[in-house]
């Protein structure tokens, strides 16, 4: 290493090394600087990407705050409170409708009429919301806050009308609730459960009717609370920073290109990503880890030479090709499978949509298996030979050695492999864009495991889908960057945890 020679006068050394110095560096120094420079460039690029993401994304909050202020000042928030009430009414009407359908044709006559009256009860509210909505839209178009607030005064003047509508709605629903009680007692359909299978016999029907009655009463009780919220609404209350941040990270709706108001809430996309990743990991972890244990500990050399390259070859398939395969083949196959009669016990089967979280999850599992396999096999191989030899020396069988000694000691490596597989899967775009169904809504988890067959949208998918239509600098553009930032931070956290796990629990080399 030292290039300084002892004095030339010394007679002991007859070999002299000539050093050519370019820009003051010897060849070794130059090579070191060259590779070191590559490392520095990599770090600098990563830092720049992080900085760029932050810079483009953080501007979102200021723009969203301005948008919300406008939303409040133009009275749209007030109109949305009314519309929310309308939607809750419609949802309850749908529940009652589903109950009628479950009762079959025998219940049709009495309840159809009831249902129509229930739906009609909300018509005055809907019309009022429509009128006020037009005024609010007009207010939104106006240039300054002052003109907006003037137009909003018209809305506020409508308060007595709103109160009257609510009172009428409450009265109507009260009447309907009382009638429901009478219908329950009187109707033969309710008592006999005509056409139902034995396990859904009369007692279940009666229970459902009582439940519906309770829901109706609860709905009526909630009306005064809603009315109070409307009364206490104010157009001039400032929008807090926390509300804006909350609206992004905990907002339940991602709605763009709306004539009314755009909402940028990341929860539907985040839950979609998580659902698809969870399905993928459920399939990939047993397959990947199992294959790794087999190839590392149990397989013969010939089997290893065959299996390892094949699994690693899956990583070479482009994800867009897998996505195409998913749309054309796998989606159809899984749906036909779900419609097989003797599989009806599986939660969620049979289902109608080909493109859903299950299809995307299966393909993502295929993508994750090589990652998990390679890293897990590496971890299993890093266990010192002394452990295996010692275990065998103490009389354990190969199977016992594998499961009681080797796998537990490489557990940190296996966990790290799974985390990195998760990171790979969460960041996958093409497969989810093509196969996951693109429904921007929080999956309905009341269906239990059946939520896996619902179409979802993911964070990666929404960026790919919407980035073509955004004009740089607009709020939509910045919202997409925020989603990208969130993805980046999640991937960073996963990778960091994986590395820390590996480093902390690494075995000393013996």
């Amino acid at each position, binding site marked *: 290493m030292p290039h300084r020679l002892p004095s030339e006068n010394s007679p002991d050394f007859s070999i002299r090394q000539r050093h050519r110095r370019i820009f003051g560096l010897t060849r070794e120094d130059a090579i070191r600087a060259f590779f070191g420079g590559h490392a520095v460039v990599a770090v600098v690029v990563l830092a720049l990407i992080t900085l760029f993401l932050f810079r483009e994304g953080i501007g979102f909050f200021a723009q969203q705050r301005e948008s919300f202020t406008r939303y409040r000042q133009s009275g749209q928030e007030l109109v949305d409170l009314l519309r929310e009430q309308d939607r809750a009414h419609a949802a309850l009407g749908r529940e009652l*409708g589903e109950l009628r359908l479950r009762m079959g044709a025998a219940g049709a006559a009495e309840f159809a009429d009831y249902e129509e009256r229930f739906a009609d009860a909300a018509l005055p509210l809907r019309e009022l919301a429509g009128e006020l909505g037009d005024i609010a839209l007009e207010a939104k178009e106006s240039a300054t806050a002052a003109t907006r607030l003037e137009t909003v005064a018209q809305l506020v003047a409508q308060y007595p009308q709103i109160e009257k509508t609510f009172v009428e709605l409450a009265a109507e629903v009260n009447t309907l609730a009382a009638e429901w009680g009478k219908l329950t007692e009187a109707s033969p359909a309710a008592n006999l459960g005509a056409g139902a299978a034995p396990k859904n016999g009369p007692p279940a029907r009666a229970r459902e009717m009582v439940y519906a009655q309770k829901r109706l009463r609860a709905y009526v009780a909630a009306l005064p609370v809603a009315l109070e919220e409307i009364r206490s609404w104010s157009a001039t209350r400032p929008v807090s920073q926390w509300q804006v941040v909350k609206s992004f990270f905990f907002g339940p709706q991602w709605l763009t290109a709306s004539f009314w108001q755009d909402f940028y809430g990341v929860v539907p996309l985040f839950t979609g990503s998580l659902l698809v990743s969870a399905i993928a990991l459920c399939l990939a972890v047993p397959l990947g880890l199992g294959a790794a244990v087999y190839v590392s500990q149990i397989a013969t050399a010939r089997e290893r030479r065959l299996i390892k390259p094949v699994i690693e070859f899956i990583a070479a398939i482009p994800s867009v090709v897998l996505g195409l395969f998913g749309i054309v083949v796998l989606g159809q196959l899984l749906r036909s499978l779900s419609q097989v009669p003797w599989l009806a016990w599986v939660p969620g089967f049979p289902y*109608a949509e080909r493109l859903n979280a299950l299809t995307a999850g299966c393909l993502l599992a295929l993508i994750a298996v090589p990652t998990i396999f390679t890293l897990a096999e590496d971890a299993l191989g890093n266990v010192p030979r002394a452990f295996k030899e010692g275990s065998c020396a103490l009389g354990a069988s190969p199977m016992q050695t594998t499961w009681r000694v080797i796998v537990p000691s490489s557990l940190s490596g296996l966990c790290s492999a799974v985390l990195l597989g998760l990171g790979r899967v969460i960041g996958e775009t093409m497969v989810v864009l093509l196969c996951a169904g693109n429904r921007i809504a929080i999956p309905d988890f009341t269906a239990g495991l059946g939520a896996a067959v619902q179409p979802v949208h993911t964070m990666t998918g929404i960026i790919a889908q919407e980035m073509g*239509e955004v004009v740089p600098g607009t709020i939509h553009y910045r919202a997409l960057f925020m989603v990208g930032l969130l993805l980046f931070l999640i991937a960073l956290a996963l990778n960091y945890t994986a590395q820390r796990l590996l480093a902390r629990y690494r075995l000393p080399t013996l």
Partner: protein
Amino acid sequence: MKTRFLHGLRPIITTGLALVFGTALHAQKLVIKGSDTLGAKLVPVLAEDYRALHPDVSFEIAAEGSSTGLAALIGGTADIGMSSRRARANEQANGVAKGVTLRPLVVCYDGIALIVNEANPLDSLTKRQVEQIFTGDVRDWAALGGGAASAGPISVYTRNTASGTYADFKDLAMKKRDYAPTSQKLAGNEQIVSEVAHNRNGIGYVGLAYIGAPGIKVVAIEGTRPSKESVLAKAYPYARPNFLYTNGEPEGEAARFIDYVLSEAGQQRVEEIGFVPVR
């Protein structure tokens, strides 16, 4: 030895350079981006016809949705923007801020046809029912009274937010209300056709040029079926003009191409593909 090798290589090098510079000097490239309704079938065919007449013009057509076309025109990355809807006020404003004037030109009319699976017994829908289905007010086929065979949750397939058809449909059929959160956003007309054809509970909307596919059935809206005649007669409620947008008055190659599209030959092609010509 070295010089002899280069000597042999010289003709290849000169030909190569000539080709590169030759094409760069004489070739004209038209970049057309935007609507999938226009850009998936119609504009590529018109581009091919135009190339047969002017071989030195090359086209780059990207059909990812009307909003992408307008955004590209404003950003300067496209010569012509295809759009199946009018530019919005904020897009016009964005354009003006960047020095771009969005100028529309009607090239054809189109009807938005509602399609269901051919196994679906439903034949006609009222406008109110269409609004209810696509906004999510009604979520089950049985609630529409189609008969027991069609019971099941409605699978609504729509275009995505980049699409002009998406926005037009909201305006024409849904009274500007938002789509149901349970709707699935697909990338193009062909994908909607494919999904509805394979899903008994499916319903979606596509342009007139795509209604001939197998497996789907077109639904009449209050008795009127979408066709060239009903669109021209303004009898079909969901008809809209399709535009080609340019930055100000079209110039040069773009102007010549647009003239071709509006000419007799171009409009005949429009009719062949399934759209409604402007004449």
